[in-house]
């Protein structure tokens, strides 16, 4: 019996870092149900889900990269690039536009991956290059102009419903399942975690470390390009200088708040989704209660600090 008594504090902290985010969401939802008018209406929930969907999609890729002890700052620029390409190829149909923007993601991811895995740059520096350059290129492609998108198929992706739920949300949910499956059940997922846990050991074990790393960055960038595409579809215009601006920070926040350690070796997919939802709920709650955006930002900062503090316990043993 003493065993359990002794183990309790450690388990609690660990439990908090794993499930704290769900608890926080629950509390926030309860608060809103009682104190925020019209919170529990379908139209409100709908808006929240639509707004959070692109962040979730980007955060999924970010979680994978962070699982390898990396980071990808270029996701926002990838969204901008994807957005910039859509008006150019939409003339050939919605499929062509999708292919073009996803290929842009593959290209950026490949460059990031090669810089990290083969050239050996630090991920933060490697992806910084395209963080700056990617958006620049996107603005050049669009000549700095905002372009309206009027293709009905694309607009359906952004604003349509399927079985009463926005298509956008369906796509995000499907991608969550795919990524969760990738991490848990595939060779690729296991290798990714092993690399994050101990790269030299993984290399010596004969694993194709570089290939896995390049693939991870490609997956991350492709997810970002899908998010960019969906954003364009939702706002029905392509603005390379605004799409996905600062989303890398929201994505990293979602990953960290969701309990994925920045030290690599572990990826919490559902936690990441919950992290994104939590931040969205916080912002929504603040806005509904007429608080300044600056106050919202400070509250976000506090949540990030709490998440990092709770996760800190892991490293000590």
């Amino acid at each position, binding site marked *: 019996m003493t065993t359990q008594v*002794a*183990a309790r504090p450690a388990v609690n902290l660990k439990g908090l870092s794993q499930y704290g985010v769900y608890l926080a969401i629950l509390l926030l939802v309860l608060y809103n149900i009682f104190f925020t008018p019209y919170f529990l209406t379908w139209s409100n929930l709908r808006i929240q889900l639509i707004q959070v969907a692109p962040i979730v999609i980007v955060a999924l890729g970010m979680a994978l990269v962070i699982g390898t002890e990396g980071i990808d700052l270029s996701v926002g620029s990838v969204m901008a690039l994807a957005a910039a390409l859509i008006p150019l190829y939409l003339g050939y149909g919605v499929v062509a536009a999708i292919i073009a923007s996803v290929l842009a993601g593959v290209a950026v991811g490949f460059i990031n991956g090669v810089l990290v895995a083969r050239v050996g740059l630090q991920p933060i520096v490697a992806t910084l290059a395209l963080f700056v350059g990617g958006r620049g290129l996107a603005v050049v492609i669009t000549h700095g102009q905002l372009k309206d998108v009027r293709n009905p198929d694309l607009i359906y992706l952004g604003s349509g419903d399927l079985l009463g739920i926005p298509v956008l949300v369906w796509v995000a949910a499907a991608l969550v399942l795919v990524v969760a499956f990738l991490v848990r059940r595939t060779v690729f997922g*296991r*290798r990714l975690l*092993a690399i994050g846990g101990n790269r030299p050991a993984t*290399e*010596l074990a004969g694993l194709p470390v570089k290939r896995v790393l390049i693939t991870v960055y490609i997956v991350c960038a492709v997810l970002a390009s899908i998010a960019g595409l969906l954003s364009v579809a939702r706002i029905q215009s392509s603005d390379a200088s605004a799409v996905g601006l600062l989303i890398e920070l929201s994505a990293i926040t979602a990953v960290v708040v969701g309990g994925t350690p920045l030290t690599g070796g572990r990826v919490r997919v559902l936690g990441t989704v919950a992290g994104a939802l939590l931040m969205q709920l916080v912002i929504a709650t603040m806005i509904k209660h007429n608080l300044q955006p600056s106050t919202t930002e400070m509250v976000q900062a506090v949540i990030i600090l709490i998440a990092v503090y709770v996760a800190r316990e892991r490293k000590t043993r």
Partner: protein
Amino acid sequence: MLEVIDVSKTFPGVRALDHVSFTLNQGEVHALVGENGAGKSTLIKVLTGVYQPDDGELRYQQQKAQFGTPMDAQHAGISTIYQEVNLVPLMSVAHNLFLGREPRNRLGLLDEGRMHREAREILAGYGVTADVRRQLGTLALGEQQMVALARAVMIDAKVVIMDEPTSSLEPREVATLFGVIRDLHSRGIGIIYVSHRLDELYQICDAVTILRDGKVVHTGKLTDLERIRLVSLMLGREMSEVRREGATAFSGAATGDTGAAPVLRASGLTSRTKLHDISFEVRPGEVVGLGGLLGAGRSETIKAIGGAYPLDSGDVQVNGVDLKKPTTVRAVKAGIAVQPEDRKAEGIIAGLSVRENIALAVLPQLSRLGLVSDSKIDAIVEKYMTRLRIKASSPDQLVGDLSGGNQQKVLLARLLATGPKVLLLDEPTRGIDVGAKAEVQSLIDELAAEGLGVVLVSSDAEELIEGADRVVVLRDGVVVGVLTGAEVTTEDLMATIAAGGNA
């Protein structure tokens, strides 16, 4: 002076200390021994304030004591020297020595002259003659350890805890260390000495406490305790079970296979300053030792064969097939398995489970279309956990929570799972307890008997001599001799290394 009374400490799933009592008297050198996982490290951490005991109490200088943090323990005069040196490699030796207690002049500024002078005087007493203005990191590991020791004693220590202080020292440095210990001893400082090397214990220690499975199984004067008794107390079994079959079984196997084609042929391995034209062969069932001093190029040779160290020229052939510029991926595919020297940094993945660690290198074989098969993994994990007798609460336990010996076995299991033809082992028994050591050694025997080619690097001369059928001796990256048959003795090994030194 320092007393531990009925202390217990439990971690999830493990009872690390079970009503442990232990007394350190003034001016005593007290050996603390036990297999890995016996609770030595936990006990030290309780003494130094890293962990709090769940139960029982500490008494220090006749008073009940409680150390909330390592800092508290240090202030009370308990200093610890860990296996790995805990100093700042980029700062000067003198700065390291005085870190946090730098001498100041009247203006409150750092008094460098005095610091350097005092550092020189203090370190001379420890046999360190290097310039105190040099960066600490440029010193030999042994010297760094002496600096750490000097620093520990300087903090007005009344108790010094040494956790395997000699594991990275050369014999000459060990002698200096023992001189220092005797000096501390005469000054009435109590010393807790943790080591796996029995010779050292009998040379330097007065008393001994033996831990096994978190319990004290013996405590008393060391002179009253026979060696064989000490070992059997530690292991909890009779000595005869532990003793290995010896070299005889080996030589028989080796002569039987001399005609066979070599499974591994390394020829002309050259890498800039480290390796020069190294060639040797390993036949199936043969254990080839790589002998030599630290820095002779043994680890580099092994890594180069495994594709993890860049080669300028040279070929590696497995069963007659040339690897053509080995990479780790190609080497593993060809059947080369490398167990690196640094288990924690390059071997295990501490944050993953035993299961994931074992299956890591063979995932493609255990999956279909990129999807892993849990049942196939379970089968292979079960097989190797049983065969290597890996002690873990379950296959899902994190490897980082296992003892050193079990971590090493997990690593070996991962290598064996790849179905290798050649096994390259770099210090396979370093830092693991006596029991696991014997198990690993007899495993090497078994594997060789099954027809694997084994390359063994060990700084333990006896292990090398008894384990290997042939010893290739390296010095400064050059093969200086090969010992075969009756020449495989400690004397011949020493003679070859020495002769190489004259050449």
